[in-house]
């Protein structure tokens, strides 16, 4: 069976990480082709529901990356984003979602190399984890019977 090729979506901010990815391009740095970039004006614009939708539509991993603190073109977009991810990650953790499949990072416009390494690193990590199947078997199956035993063990 051909080796599992993970589907990874990257939500990046236009001013830093997207430019960093362009820089990786202009310096012809080779990296894995499993990542598809979706461009946002700022990390502050990335909605937590887009991450859920990505996993629901079959993504195996998600990268969220933007400007370093204090670098934000809009002064505070990344600060708000950081607070949002702290809260969102703790909800996912409570629910038992594998938060390791979401990688957060800061990549500046000058860090082309760092972007390439990040993509390779995340691709290997997700390849090791295997496809994301947590959401697959859930719909349509009546799990009602099992729910009560767990409630007040």
């Amino acid at each position, binding site marked *: 069976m051909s080796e599992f090729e993970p*589907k990874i979506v990257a939500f990046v901010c236009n001013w830093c990480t997207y430019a960093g990815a*362009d820089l990786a391009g202009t310096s012809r740095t080779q990296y894995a082709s499993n990542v598809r970039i979706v461009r946002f004006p700022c990390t502050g614009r990335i909605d937590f529901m887009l991450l859920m939708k990505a996993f629901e*539509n079959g993504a195996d991993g998600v990268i969220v990356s933007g400007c370093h603190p204090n670098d934000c073109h809009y002064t505070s977009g990344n600060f708000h984003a950081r607070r949002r991810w702290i809260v969102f990650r703790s909800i996912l953790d409570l629910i038992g979602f594998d938060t390791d499949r979401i990688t957060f990072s800061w990549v500046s416009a000058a860090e082309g190399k760092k972007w390439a390494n990040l993509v390779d690193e995340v691709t290997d990590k997700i390849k090791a984890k295997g496809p994301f199947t947590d959401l697959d078997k859930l719909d349509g199956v009546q799990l009602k019977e099992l729910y009560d035993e767990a409630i007040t063990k």
Partner: protein
Amino acid sequence: MARIGVFICHCGENISATVDVAKVAEEAAKMPGVAYAMDYKYMCSDPGQTKIIEAIKEHKLTGIVVGACSPRMHEATFRKAAEKGGINPFLCEIANLREQVSWVHPRTEATTRKAIDIVRTIVNKVSKDTPLFPIKVPVTKTALVIGGGIAGIQAALDIANAGHQVIMVEKSPSIGGHMSQLSETFPTLDCSQCILTPRMVEVAQHPNITLHTFAEVESVSGFVGNFDVKVRLKARSVDMSKCTGCGTCWQKCPSKKIPDEFNAGLSYRTAIYSPFPQAVPNKPVIDRANCNYFQKGKCGICKKVCPAGAIDYEMEDEIIDIKVGAIVTATGFDIKHTDFFPEYGYGEFKDVIDGLQFERLASASGPTSGEIRRPSDGKIPEKIVFLACSGSRDKAKGIEYCSKICCMYTAKHAMLYKHKHHEGNAYVFYMDIRSAGKNYDEFVRRAIEEDDVHYIRGRVSRIYEKDGKLIVKGVDTLMNAEPVEIEADMVVLATAVVANPDAESVAQKMHISYDKHHFFAEAHPKLRPVETNTAGIMLAGACQTAKDIPDTVSQASAAASKIMGLFSSDEMTREPVVAVVNRCMPPLFTTCTGCLLCLEVCPYHAIEREEIKDRRTGEILKVAAKVNAGLCQGCGTCVAFCRNKSIDLQGFSNQQMLSEVVALLNKPF
């Protein structure tokens, strides 16, 4: 159903080397909503662009996707081409196939598949695009200049000479700022009054400039092109129209024991005073805090003696509303005073003075009319010690930056002292001499070689008084760190340049950011040094950071030119990528709940509270948020923040971003 045209570029062979461009175009043609797809060697070339323009007409396209290099390169080019072709430029998007696909992946089937996926993503985004039109914001062609120092004066004159109206607001009774307090200026030693006073008069007489002295900005609201500013004209208690500036009042005024700010506390002034002889306007003002009439209800002599009957105690502060298109912030700087230094006597030794006080001693209009005399006993000092870097470059004092101007004016002070008192001895304790301007280092060398000022490289650890002399204990690091003790008659501290005490409140009124030293923050230290992050507000002079006069003047002219650019057209066009709060039919009016938590999220304060009123009764039906398109820079933080998605960002709307994600993940990678 959208009719989208997909144009895949070979980019010579930069893309076609590793991506099977023909297959990408073929696959693109099959995508829902795509009416026409083709690939071409150089899409960005002229023939390439004309192909797009023709395709739009021929296939009646409603959206364009160009698979080529990064949007950061040619998005504008292709959008112009789309516009020429007759469709809204914002319906043309770029799929980045070069920097993020062909250049970074080998020639494999997966790379082509990635290219196809990226194209499908952007096709989906374009299918959800709506036509957007540049935002037109009317511009009031009046500029507000806050601060009447050399920075404010230069900026005001430049803008006024360009034919626009200028309103200058100066806190103290006269314009001139700190420069008017200087004696001579380095490196040319020309007297500062001579080069400044003409400019001050020019400001006062310029038809396009309205001058408000003894006035402060009360509040600033609105946005670039449409600022509403409230200015408080503090009560002068002197009717400017009647007063001739004859000076009888301040000669007869009985309370004479008020420390004179203009002479940096070295002399006293009366309650009714004009700051300095060349003041513009040269009309006095009553210092109500120290005037007997206002404090104890007695006196009133100035009113009796005034030949023109210009004194009017009942004058009240007046708040005026002005509409301006842009603002130059030139609120200047302050310096640390001697009481800031415990090791140099907590400011209690009379003969330990700061740079400004020495300027006043050296100035012809100063308390000693130009003669360098000791404040304690008025004698001419035989030995003066100058301390460079007093407080600056000192983390322990919390001021870790260099104040840039002290090396130069310390050399100047030493030179002036030697010129006025040849046999006197001048010592300068310094760390490093920073004289990087034009003719600057030559000036310092002249002080050392011709006027034999003794430069000692070392810091002074302590100053104490002993029978009338000031013992200065320092060290000479160039003479293997020998302790040095000088019995000086006077010590001049070149104290650190700091922000004005009320800089923080001025910044908060204008919603501009400032650093931890309360210097105002420029938009970008290298590329946009005269603008702030708030569109329409410029910076000039030492309020941004310590700066000498040449830099200040050039920055002031730069700020003025930015504003002239802004005022060059009646309307200002802005990128339409802005957030919009939805509005719909009554009785709902908008899905926004009016929680207004998004107001704080916006770094540009672009979201305002709007009261939706019933037109007939005026009763408030609903409170909701509203985005001011002039201020919004399109970061979208509020869009991701809003709980029930009432606010959306044009160009990166919720529907577009979600359709991109879904389109991306439909097919295996």
